[in-house]
């Protein structure tokens, strides 16, 4: 690495020595509808750092492509005030993924429940890469404590920072600019001024957008960030193990992937599914089902593109949240009013079978469910970037003792 023929200024310096000045940033976002947003954030941070005379570059996690809606993805940015571009690239960009970061940005707070971007990756904690004293910066309407209870317990202290805001699904061809980009950059300047200072950010944004509203939102964002230390005693023992990747010498002859073993019975988890890749970490919301008002029409089961519904002996359809991507198709197709409703996934503790809970105590289940749902219903615009409509219902549909038929 040192002594590169490209005439770097750090000849004869070891990698470990060069490493000292490198700062790393990771941006976690949801595939496709947050992609343009994430790229704006890392690009703008790099340019703002350049304006301070730093060396910086960014890239996307190669293995995320092709991206799919909802799948957790990541961008990286690297900064140094001592290294040349060649040296920074040599130290920072050799691998596909990074293993540590000074700042980990999260654009959808439901990602605190874990990330599984592809098969055999396992469900990994969002704070996995945060270094001692580093910061986990989350765009969220929640209090830090509500998020910390989902995080893996670390062996050291670090910080959590909240930038108040909603998950911004900015869209693909139709891009909605709600200033989440500049707000996030300002928040990074707040929690890690060593990456880039707020003045440079302001100057850069002024020059790039020439838009007073954008500058104002970034200043507001800078002031509104809430930072709190997370002690090493806080968080949970991570419940998901890290799978061992099958290596080339454990493959069968040819390129053979083992099929899912055939198996089906009625009831929860009765269908065999792909054991090495679950899609549950793709969801921002989950469907909750009023089994008592269900008319057993089959359509949620029929329309689910991820085969998440398990038919039960009593004609209902249990849902397997481990695999549910939260697309909302079942809620859209259900013919009964307020029977399937999409609810913020952070309101839920686990992925256990809702049908079993209903069978144990039907009325208790409905009461629990309606509390989780609350009174506000979210309805996304057909064109994603055009936002979400919120409506308030007056009262929940009363519990039906004898079911929906």
């Amino acid at each position: 690495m040192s002594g590169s023929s490209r005439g770097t200024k750090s000849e004869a310096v070891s990698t470990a020595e060069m490493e000292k000045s490198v700062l790393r940033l990771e941006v976690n976002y949801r595939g496709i509808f947050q992609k343009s947003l994430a790229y704006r954030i890392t690009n703008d941070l790099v340019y703002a750092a350049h304006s301070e005379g730093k060396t910086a570059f960014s890239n996307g996690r190669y293995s995320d492509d092709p991206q799919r809606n909802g799948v957790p993805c990541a961008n990286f940015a690297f900064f140094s005030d001592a290294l040349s571009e060649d040296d920074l690239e040599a130290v920072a960009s050799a691998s596909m993924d990074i293993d540590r970061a000074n700042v980990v940005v999260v654009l959808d707070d439901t990602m605190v429940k874990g990330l599984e971007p592809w098969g055999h990756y396992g469900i990994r904690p969002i704070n996995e890469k945060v270094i001692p004293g580093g910061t986990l910066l989350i765009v969220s309407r929640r209090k830090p404590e509500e998020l910390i209870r989902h995080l893996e317990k670390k062996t050291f202290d670090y910080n959590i920072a909240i930038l108040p805001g909603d998950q911004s699904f900015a869209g693909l061809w139709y891009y909605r600019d709600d200033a989440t980009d500049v707000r996030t950059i300002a928040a990074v300047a707040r929690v890690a001024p060593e990456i880039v200072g707020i003045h440079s950010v302001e100057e850069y944004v002024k020059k790039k957008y020439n838009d007073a509203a954008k500058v104002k939102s970034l200043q507001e964002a800078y002031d509104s960030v809430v930072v709190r230390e997370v002690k090493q005693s806080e968080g949970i023992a991570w419940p998901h193990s890290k799978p061992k990747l099958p290596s080339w010498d454990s493959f069968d002859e040819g390129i053979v992937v083992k099929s899912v073993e055939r198996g089906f019975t009625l009831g929860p988890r009765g269908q065999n599914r792909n054991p090495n890749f679950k899609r549950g970490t793709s969801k921002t919301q989950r469907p909750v089902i009023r089994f008592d008002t269900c008319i057993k029409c089959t359509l949620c089961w029929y329309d689910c593109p991820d085969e998440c519904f398990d038919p039960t002996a009593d004609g209902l359809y249990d849902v397997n949240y481990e695999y549910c991507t939260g697309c909302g198709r079942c809620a859209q197709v259900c013919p009964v009013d307020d029977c399937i409703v999409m609810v913020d996934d952070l309101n839920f503790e686990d992925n256990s079978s809702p049908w079993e809970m209903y069978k144990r105590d039907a009325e208790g289940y409905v009461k629990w469910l309606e509390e989780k749902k609350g009174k506000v219903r979210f309805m996304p615009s057909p064109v994603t970037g055009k936002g979400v409509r919120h409506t308030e219902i007056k009262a929940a549909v009363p519990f039906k003792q004898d079911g929906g038929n």
Partner: protein
Amino acid sequence: MAQGWRGKEAIEMATTTGVSKEEFKNAKLYKSVHGIDMEEFYTSGHRTCQGCESALVMRDFVKASGPRTVVTGATGCMYVANTSYMTTPWVVPWMHTQLGGGGASAVGMAAGLRALMRKGKIPDEKINVINFSGDLGGGDMGLGGISGALQTDYDMLIIIYDNESAANTDIQATNMTPWGAQTTFTPTGSKKRIMHDKWKKNVAPMLAIGHPNCKYVATACATFPPMDYMNKVKKALSIGGPTLIHTMDPCPKGWDYHPRYSGDLGQLAIKTGIFPLYEIIKGEVNYTYDARKTKRVPVREYLEKQGRFSHFIEDDFEFVQSRVDEMWNDWEIPGVAPIKGWLSVRR
């Protein structure tokens, strides 16, 4: 929140699309949504987008064809998203083939099975051979191979799943991309608003007209009307010989809409008449949703729900409407063959 009418109407439609033709009495067609097999042979744990309709095209064809099925799939989303690092959602045997290789791979598989059975190496039984290819892989690149396959006497079904772009490689225009749509090849701009100025290739009729030995060609949408697509798969497999189904697959990524609305968009594609639903059985056209008899929904209701058309102005909506009207009002075989629509004998 529930949309009420959509589900209810869908149930009614499911029971009214004619399913009991004499020639398909051995096809074991579904007669009610409650009679659909519950077991999955393409199951959870795939890396397709939230709300992906093409995933349902996979799930439903193999549900309809059952466990004695072998599948070949051309490169594209339905290969890549379904093989996330050495994992698969398939229960039945499945083989990847090259982007344009759908037809040839199906012929090879069917020929191989026939030879093994003739030599007594495997039991003589009906094994369904199905290939899926995307609109680029099947409708553009692989057209020659599919044409070849349709001229053989092997039993096999080729499904062109049409998400109207090369979706896997991040949404490039194909010849099945609809007029005016934004893709990475055809972005809108200040100098030229409409970059994709070609009308969608009419692939199913072209293959039906050109291959008179092919006994069954159909168009379908996986979820609307319920059962329609699965019964078409059953009909295609029972009639024998090479057959073809072209499906219309709303794609939340490329079309830029919230994944919740895939079902609605499939439904609207059919109700606006922009995607005609029919089957061609031994040369006879049978509409499975007859847009001549129902009042067509204005195409605007379909187009305005997709970000890929967000640059449309009034003229554009009108232009698309006029072409769809022409297709239903002026074509010799409405919605299918434009013999009178734009082809005529030179005087």
